């Protein structure tokens, strides 16, 4: 390559002068964000195509292109990267429509996945059904082999047993195989041998080895994670291949990146090796975006809350980073034992159904979803939902909803509200609707209290960052309930997850098991394993060369006190090679961290190392977030609307958010309408915009019992 060409190529590789696209596929809408070469951002929504999400993705790109006055091909030719969040894996779990999956285990451990360490989700309901099986018992086979906890072979692998098991599984049409042997993460030889034998005996079968999917103890968590990986893998593989192909046909020649549940993005090739990492990644983009906008607003400790149609997702952010949890992550009734952004979800959204059961009001978790949806949508919904209550109370604009694409039938709500809620509770209709509003706020506030309690944090010390279409309608009242002083609502809130995709870094997590009392850790071995993991991560990230400002490797030790089941990640002290001093400092860090979270440490005990991890982050160039102008004039009202606050109907001022500028201040009671969301300001609350387009709402005294 000629020199001048090389410089140009570097510019192209670095994405200068090019577009970037973020696409988040949700249940109802596919959200898109286009980052222009000048750093500004445009938002778009397009209906999701459930049977093949890639169709909706391409349609959405066409819409974006139209907004830019281009055709899709021209846009894609000048697009550097497409970052994608997909619910394909979650859909496979919800519909239980993954691959026909089989499991080979150590003899005697065939039933871990049913025993679940004794865990059941509801302690009061004996009729609770089991989770739908990924591999029925007939497709789970124990074979003769056993290692001890140091990886020594106690019983050699019986290869004939393996062949028999494979034949039996093949006969049952198994497409995807999970292999989980005891202590394989210490010594993977037996699991690897099964893959070799499978290549001979059943070459069509996809194989997931537990030590590659989740190289750490204990057996139930690893079995569950590996089974889910095997189950969703082939479908993810097909979906990504199809999407890559469709994008290629549409003229895209560069890189597709996919969001993972650890908050990082990676290539389809990387995802294919551990497809389970895209599970539950949907809301993660929103959390990343929340971190970015909060960072601009200089907020480092906050709770972000995403309220959509069916669920309310909360994540606690401390020191600018989302909490990562890597043990007891339950999704779709299976445990995923890999590092995931710790998002807590409750069944409360706009579509949540309100009902009176034996004289008590309940809201959710049942949801009317998008179809039939709330009564006010006029699509056949007949049960009162949270959105119906909000519409009835005047919080939502009936004539201009969802950026003018919908109108709301408030009159239809009244009768249902009276019959289903008000009369059984012996309340007035408005009181009943306000009761729904208050109860759902209280439920959400309690969810935040619980999440904060798990981390030993007082919610009053936090900022609340609210997004999702319904989030800002409720956030102000929730903050008041919680004693939170400030709410942040980004203008980009409704397509926040897609925005977050644009703001994500490449993340590779590598784990190696190393079990030893901390006084017996050999630094040479630890360094060798860290080196191995760092090199593995660099091999993957190297392909992205030119896109990264830098690559950061964080080395982590998973430590616990003897006898504890759940270990704790501790960042290794120092930057260079691990020496005796760094090791001692890391152990001391563990004691301190334990004291912070658990209020005590026991320095007389010798902590135990469970595993080593390297989290490698390839830091990407981020698009600049849009900024908005200033004004010293008073904001102009869009109009007035009757809305219900604290037992009274008030003629409430309504503002058009798109006309508000920095310097404007809106005082409650008031309503601010944005294209895809609405902010409700109660008495004593006021909102102003910062130049990054965040509404900053001062909440004032707790209120709204």
């Amino acid at each position: 390559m000629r020199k001048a060409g090389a410089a140009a190529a570097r510019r192209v590789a670095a994405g200068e002068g090019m577009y970037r696209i973020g696409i988040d596929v949700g249940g109802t809408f596919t959200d898109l964000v286009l980052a222009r070469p000048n750093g500004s951002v445009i938002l778009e929504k397009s209906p999701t195509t459930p049977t093949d999400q890639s169709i909706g993705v391409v349609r959405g790109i066409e819409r974006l292109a139209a907004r830019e006055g281009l055709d899709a091909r021209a846009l894609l030719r000048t697009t550097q990267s497409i970052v994608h969040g997909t619910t394909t894996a979650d859909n496979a779990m919800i519909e239980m429509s993954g691959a026909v999956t089989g499991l080979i285990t150590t003899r005697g451990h065939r039933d871990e996945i049913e025993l679940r360490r004794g865990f059941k989700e509801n302690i009061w309901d004996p009729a609770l059904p089991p989770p739908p099986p990924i591999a029925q018992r007939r497709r789970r086979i124990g074979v003769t082999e056993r290692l001890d906890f140091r990886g020594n072979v106690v019983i050699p692998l019986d290869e004939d047993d393996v062949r028999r098991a494979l034949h039996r599984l093949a006969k049952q049409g198994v497409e995807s195989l999970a292999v989980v042997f005891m202590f394989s993460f210490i010594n993977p030889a037996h699991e690897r041998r099964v893959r070799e034998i499978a290549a001979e005996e059943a070459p069509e079968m996809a194989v997931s080895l537990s030590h590659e999917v989740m190289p750490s103890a204990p057996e139930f968590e690893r079995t569950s994670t590996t089974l889910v990986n095997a189950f969703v893998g082939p479908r993810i593989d097909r979906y990504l291949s199809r999407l890559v192909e469709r994008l290629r046909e549409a003229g895209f020649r560069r890189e597709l990146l996919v969001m993972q549940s650890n908050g990082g993005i990676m290539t389809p090739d990387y995802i294919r090796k551990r497809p389970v990492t895209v599970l539950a990644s949907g809301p993660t983009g929103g959390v990343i975006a929340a971190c970015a906008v909060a960072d601009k607003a200089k907020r480092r400790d906050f709770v972000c809350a995403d309220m959509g149609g069916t669920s309310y997702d909360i994540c606690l952010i401390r020191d600018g980073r989302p909490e990562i949890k890597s043990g007891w992550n339950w999704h779709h009734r299976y445990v995923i034992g890999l590092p995931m952004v710790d998002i807590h979800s409750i069944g409360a959204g706009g579509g949540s159904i309100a009902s009176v059961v034996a004289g008590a009001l309940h809201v959710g978790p049942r949801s009317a979803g998008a179809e039939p949806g709330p009564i006010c949508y006029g699509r056949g919904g007949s049960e009162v939902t949270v959105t119906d209550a909000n519409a009835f109370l005047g919080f939502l604009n009936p004539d201009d909803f969802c950026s003018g694409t919908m109108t709301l039938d408030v009159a239809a709500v009244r009768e249902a509200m009276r019959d289903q809620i008000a009369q059984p509770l012996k309340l007035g209709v408005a009181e009943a609707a306000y009761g729904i509003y208050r109860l759902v706020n209280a439920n959400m506030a309690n969810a935040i209290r619980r999440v904060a309690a798990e981390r030993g944090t007082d919610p009053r010390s936090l900022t609340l960052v609210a997004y999702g279409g319904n989030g800002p309608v409720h956030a102000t009242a929730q903050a008041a309930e919680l004693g939170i002083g400030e709410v942040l609502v980004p203008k980009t809130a409704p397509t926040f997850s897609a925005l977050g995709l644009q703001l994500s870094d490449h993340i590779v997590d590598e784990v190696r098991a190393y079990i030893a009392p901390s006084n017996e850790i050999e630094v040479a071995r630890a360094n060798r394993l860290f080196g191995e993991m760092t090199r593995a991560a660099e091999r993957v990230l190297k392909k992205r060369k030119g896109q990264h400002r830098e690559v950061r490797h964080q080395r982590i030790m998973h430590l616990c006190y003897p006898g504890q089941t759940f270990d704790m990640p501790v960042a290794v002290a120092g930057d260079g090679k691990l020496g005796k001093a760094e090791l001692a400092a890391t152990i001391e860090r563990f004691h301190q961290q334990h004291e912070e979270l658990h209020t005590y440490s026991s320095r007389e005990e010798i902590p135990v190392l469970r595993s080593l991890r390297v989290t490698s982050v390839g830091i990407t160039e981020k698009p600049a977030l849009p900024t908005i102008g200033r004004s010293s004039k008073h904001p102009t009202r869009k109009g007035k609307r009757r809305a219900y606050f604290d037992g009274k109907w008030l003629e409430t001022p309504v503002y058009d958010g798109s006309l508000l500028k920095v310097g404007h201040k809106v005082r409650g009671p008031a309503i601010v309408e944005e294209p895809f969301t609405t902010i409700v300001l109660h008495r004593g609350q006021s909102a102003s915009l910062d130049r990054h387009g965040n509404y900053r709402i001062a909440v004032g005294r707790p209120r709204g019992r």
Partner: protein
Amino acid sequence: MAVAKKRGARSNGKGAGKRRARTSRSKRRVDPVEAEIVRGAMETVCYEMATHVSLTATTPILNQSNERNATILDGRGALAALSVGIPQFMLSSTLPVRFALDFFGADGLHDGDVLVGNDPYHGGGHLPDYNIFAPVFAGDELVLIASIQCHHADTGGGMPGGYNVDAADIWAEGVRFPALKIFDRGVEREDVTYFMRVNNRTPTFVGDLRSQVGAAQLGVERLKEVIERHGVDTVRGAAEYMIDYAARRFREEVATWPDGTYESDVYVDHDPKGNEDIHIHCAVTVDGDRLKVDFTGSDDRDNLQAYSTFGNTRGYVVAQIASMMDPSIPKNEGFFDSIDLVVPEGCCLNPPPNKSVAAGTHHPGTEVGEAIAIALAQVIPQRCCPQIYKMGMPTVIFGTHPDTGEMFIDHSVDTFGAYCGAVYGQDGWGAMNVSFGNLIRATGEINESIFPVRHMSRDYATDSGGPGKWRGCPGTQYEKQILAPSQIYTFVVGRKYPMPGIAGGMDGAPNKLSLRTGSVEEHEIETTAFYVDHQPGEGYAYRYGGGGGWGDPTERDPQAVLDDVLDEYVSIEAAERDYGVVLTGTLEELDLAVDVEATAQRRATIRSERGRDA
């Protein structure tokens, strides 16, 4: 019998409750929305208290296995709200609080007090369950009480570990705390904590106690915020509303049950001393919307080593009945009070003073639930599944760890399936009944790095689940190898009386524990094993009992039986013998199919045979 009932009522603390009720009825009507919001806030405080223990306790049973239960009581000691935990245990945590209210009287408790109680004869279950509780005042008025109960690893007494199943009396089991202030008006009583420290073997005891005290104090702080947010009258009114609401929902459910008195007799194999057939007689009377549970006629032999205290018995009664009603009914005093409970003093479910309760807390404690389920199965079988276990006690292995030279104790709280029955419409599944849903069990990959043992098997044992229209969950074939010289201490029941079938369902397989497996000395345990030596390479094999079946097995969908055979929950032979389903083909070839005609014949034969037997 009048005497018996009076005893029950006194232990129940109802007299005390009525006396206080006058001073603390709320002055204003609370609307249902407010009540629901306050209830949510209280349950969240319970969750915060329990989470505080999970985060700050030092022993795995508290910080990982979740054996901690948080509750909030009103100023009269009536249960207002509770959170996650284990039903049988959290429901036995109110009576110690009521004893303290009686003992200290209206002027004896103050803001900043924190109390401890663990005595089975003053409302508690068994000595290792320590209740820590603290009053919540608004001004000088007692409004609520925050309470947190935890199981501790030791409680003093004659045997380490709190399970002295052979104890001569309650004093031999451990130290008794009827009600004692650890904090007096916000100041720690160091004399008390020091006294508690020196009376316990485990160095972690005081740390765990502190964790509980911290949780109770956190509860007080949070509840004061709730009171400030909503006002005293609203909070009190909401608690009353929710209690009334639970009582109303309870009565509405009972009203749908047929009137009559339904009796049952259930048995525990034996107590640790070998007294056989510990008998529970239960008579449940449904009268309109009222429910009476009467254990008159239960075992009252005077030499038993099997006593469940009144508080313990009551906890199991409530837990079982709760499992038979709509799960959404709040479990509070309204629920408790709706049960007219009669337990004569002196029988195995309400012992004479000072008897040992270490073994009896579980057996006959748990069989209380079985008796109620069996009695009511005569009329509302679709609601009945005993939410219990037949564990005896954990299989304790101890010895010297060859790697460290230190003593180890493996309580074998491992993952295994056992005692999980079918309910109407649902086969038994998983490991345990849902009533243990929050108790997380140990794994091989972690425990083998701690103890010199090897977990060789926990697969379900084919045919161990009780046959039925809905099948009981199989128990597991548990095999553990021991790698260092060790001793085993345990107590076994459920051999003669396994988990019962309901409504024509058959019993689950019985327990079968063999020690010293892999040696010529292998033998089955009939009652107890006290300090049985094991050499490296030997082990134990525990075929844990399966759950009972529900309904006539010949009514099970033949396709479901075929699936069970393919999955090896059920053998081909048992399919024919128990379910009357005749299959063609073989399991090896995976070509099994139902022989429709032969099945119809076989089922007809079975029904006529069973009809003749009955």
